[in-house]
């Protein structure tokens, strides 16, 4: 239409458009070639195992069957693993327990870590020493931490000794043999070990809050709490979401320390989803079923995290 009215002008615009397209196309092809090795690598590291897992999850395959996993189609059971899973009460209770541990540990780690980070923003005597001490739990090998807390929570162990000293009574709680206290002990170990990570990330966020904006708020009459709520927290939102996401994902997979402390027991009292998967894999050897469980959890966790991140982005854009 316009080309009839003003052919010259439009044709010039067309040329310019063509040129830019050509350049872009050439760049795209080159870019594709250059990233191809990396993409193949990602394919084999991430996508291939995932497809393999999906494939096995649709069969009854087990390594004891004497056939390779690629021949698992001989034991095809379509969605039986998934329907079994829906009816598996041990799976659901493990999932619920994992959620409970997460719902207590992550907020506790966040609040303690944030409190410590606030303390560490200002200078005080011995800050560097305390800072190093703060980070030690994170550097302890989880298995070692597991043994440490296993010892601490023995009925004749230091925890009971300290409680006895504090209360003046003879405290002899069998921490790891009682379903409730075992779960508490496991959570204490997780909080001890991972609060420093929270502290470290939140401190970085806190230091990054622009000081002059905090000062401006002070000069406008904002109290400490008002400044914290209206300036510091909003500025830290991104880093808080990152810290929480890391800990939610990690805590969901809680295994090593816990397994050494209780082995998931007494009974199934501390059996989280990872422990359950481990037991099904190593003791019952039903790999097709395990693949199904793992896949369901992967999908659930992915949805959870991407929801959290998209909500954060939406809030940021507003």
């Amino acid at each position, binding site marked *: 239409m316009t080309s009839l009215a003003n052919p010259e002008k439009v044709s010039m615009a067309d040329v310019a458009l063509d040129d830019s397209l050509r350049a872009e196309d050439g760049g795209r092809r080159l870019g594709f070639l250059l990233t191809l090795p990396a993409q193949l690598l990602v394919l084999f590291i991430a996508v291939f195992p995932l497809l393999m897992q999906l494939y096995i999850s649709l069969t009854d395959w087990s390594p004891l069957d004497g056939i390779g996993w690629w021949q698992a189609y001989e034991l095809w059971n379509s969605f039986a693993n998934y329907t079994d899973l829906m009816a598996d009460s041990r799976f659901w209770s493990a999932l619920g327990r994992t959620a409970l541990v997460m719902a207590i540990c992550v907020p506790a780690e966040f609040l303690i870590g944030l409190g410590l980070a606030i303390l560490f923003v200002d200078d005080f005597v011995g800050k560097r020493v305390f800072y190093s001490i703060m980070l030690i739990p994170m550097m302890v090998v989880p298995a070692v931490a597991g043994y440490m807390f296993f010892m601490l929570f023995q009925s004749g162990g230091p925890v009971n000794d300290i409680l006895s000293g504090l209360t003046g009574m003879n405290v002899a709680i069998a921490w790891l043999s009682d379903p409730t206290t075992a779960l508490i002990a496991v959570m204490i170990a997780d909080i001890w070990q991972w609060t420093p990570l929270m502290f470290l990330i939140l401190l970085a966020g806190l230091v990054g809050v622009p000081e002059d904006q905090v000062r*401006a708020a*002070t*000069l406008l009459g904002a109290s400490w709490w008002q400044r914290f709520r209206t300036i510091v927290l*909003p500025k830290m939102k991104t880093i808080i979401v990152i810290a929480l996401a890391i800990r939610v994902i990690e805590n969901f997979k809680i295994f090593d320390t816990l397994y050494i402390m209780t082995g998931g027991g007494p009974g199934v009292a501390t059996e989280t989803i990872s422990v359950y998967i481990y037991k099904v894999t190593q003791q019952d050897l039903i790999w097709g079923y395990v693949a199904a469980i793992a896949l369901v959890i992967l999908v659930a966790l992915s949805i959870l995290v991407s929801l959290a991140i998209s909500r954060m982005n939406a809030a940021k854009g507003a």
Partner: protein
Amino acid sequence: MTAIHLQNLVKRFGAFTALKTMDLEIRDGEFMALLGPSGCGKSTTMNMIAGMENPSEGRILFDGKDMNGVAMGRRGVGFVFQNYAIFTHMNVYDNLAYGLRMRRLPEGEVDSRVRKIADFLQLSPLLKQPSAKLSVNILQRLAIGRSAIVEPAIFLLDEPLSNVDAAFRAVMRTELKHLQRQFRQTMVYVTHDQLEAMTMADRIAVMDHGVLQQVGTPLEVYNNPDNLFVAGFIGAPGMNLLKGELADSDRGLVVDLAALGRSAPLGPALAAAARSNGSRDIVYGFRPERVSLAPSGEGMTMPVVFVERIGARTVVHLGTDAQRVKAVFDNDVALEAGVSAAIAIEPGSVRLFDAASGHGIREA
């Protein structure tokens, strides 16, 4: 509106003294500029007025009330930061409303006051915009509005124009002065740019190395500098300052400027002041703008070293390495490096300084 009185204010950081016994009275409703090169103690002074730092000695009085121990949020001080410190995670409206909300005012009153000040500062169309990507002049207005809305008695501005490009600075200067007239608040303005201080301030406090050098109106400071630092610092280029010796001649008291010859005779009042000062070693000062070309045979003759043509005017550098003179002429002045020029100094514009102490020698 509040008068500020700084009494014997001293600030030390460890062994370093940032501010040496400063005494300054800032009148109610006055626009006072603290002017000086970086590190002169002007920002330290400002931070102490705001309460961000505590004085090592001395007192700060607001309308006679000692501010020592009064938290910065309770001093009634509005502060405009060098980079404006706008809350970038809030929109324009929430920035303006911040101070009122922190005082827990009812949202209805907050809203009406925000709209009033937004109208006044022409921010109304921008109220819903995120503040992170606003242009500098809007940021400045927003920063001022955010402080002004809580009606502080005192406004402190810390080099608010230093991040702005030169062309825009002129616009912002005008705008700022206009705003101050409307708010009629006591304003203290820290700057190292004398143009800002000269154009906006009612009075200027010139500072150097933690010492208050001179306080006065822009013209007082420009015309009658109290000492050599102020004389050299104010004006672009600064005052010509030539070492010389008082000498008697048959036409009256003159200054012997060594290689440059003798000056024209001093005026009777200035001569009398110079005689009563005692010392013969003095510094002979005059503004480059007060120099004209003299008919040959008159004035002081000296070689032209360098000619700087800056468009509207031409700055000519004359004299010797030891006694360098700058003179400002019209842009078409017919001088070039290598020639000799005879210059005459406007008689009333000569200022003398004691060479030893650096203090100005004032006519009685």
